[in-house]
């Protein structure tokens, strides 16, 4: 498989196939991320398409210092933000999954997590669980969703995520914690199925 920089080189030479290949690599992730900023799939699609156009127009200036994926996400976020909102990294309300109600007055579990069977991980990582996980991601509030998509779905480092989103690493982890704990709860019914 050709690397991004090879594809960029071909793209500079006017190779439309190289563009299609890069788009196949990143477009869907970009639409997902944009959807955590703008209302509706159409607006998210538009933000992602605008980002590609930005790449094409800036091709000669793109220095390859940052990986292409990070660059695309950065432009996308700035487009999606200016399209909609100024509010930054606001923290969601406490997550009931780990809220005070789950613990007794001494701080022990009042309602401990029900154990997941030994094969739960295997089942949740199988292709059949994909729809369930994507639906759970879509249900996350925007703030945690942005962080979970970048950190856990795209595998960026925590420091890269906080830089891209313009929030502190501590806030980034708070949002990540909210997102992951909500996802855990959303997957619990499927995971507990023995």
């Amino acid at each position, binding site marked *: 498989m050709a690397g991004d920089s090879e594809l960029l080189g071909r793209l500079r030479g006017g190779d439309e196939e190289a563009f299609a290949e890069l788009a196949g690599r990143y477009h869907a992730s970009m639409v997902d991320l944009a959807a955590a900023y703008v209302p509706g799939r159409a607006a998210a699609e538009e933000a992602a398409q605008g980002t*590609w156009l930005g790449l094409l127009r800036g091709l000669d200036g793109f220095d390859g210092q940052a990986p292409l994926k990070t660059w695309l996400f950065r432009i996308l976020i700035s487009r999606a933000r200016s399209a909609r909102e100024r509010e930054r990294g606001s923290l969601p309300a406490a997550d009931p999954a*780990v809220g005070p109600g789950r613990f007794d007055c001494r701080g022990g579990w009042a309602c401990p997590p029900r154990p997941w069977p030994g094969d739960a991980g295997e089942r949740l990582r199988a292709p059949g669980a994909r729809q369930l996980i994507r639906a759970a991601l879509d249900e996350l509030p925007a703030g945690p969703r942005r962080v979970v998509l970048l950190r856990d779905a795209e595998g960026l480092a925590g420091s890269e995520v906080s830089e891209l989103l313009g929030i502190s690493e501590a806030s980034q982890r708070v949002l990540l914690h909210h997102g992951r704990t909500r996802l*855990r709860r959303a997957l619990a019914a499927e995971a507990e199925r023995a």
Partner: protein
Amino acid sequence: MAWPRTGIVCRKAADLVTEYLEDALPPRDRARFEAHLAGCRHCAEYRRQLRITISAVARAGPEELSSAARSELAAVYRRWRSG
């Protein structure tokens, strides 16, 4: 099941689990967290479930591009070439 002896109760351990998994806890807190989990099966199970959740999300990549999306992107490219 609280474990005041280790200095961390379950509620605190549950709060710290992401910082633990992100390797962002200072050494002393990390040691306390691990000491608590060594003696608390509920918190150990909670950490296991979060690890499974994280790995499941990593595997559930976005959809393949639809042919509609592909042709829209091809149109973006051609507009740029001609403009």
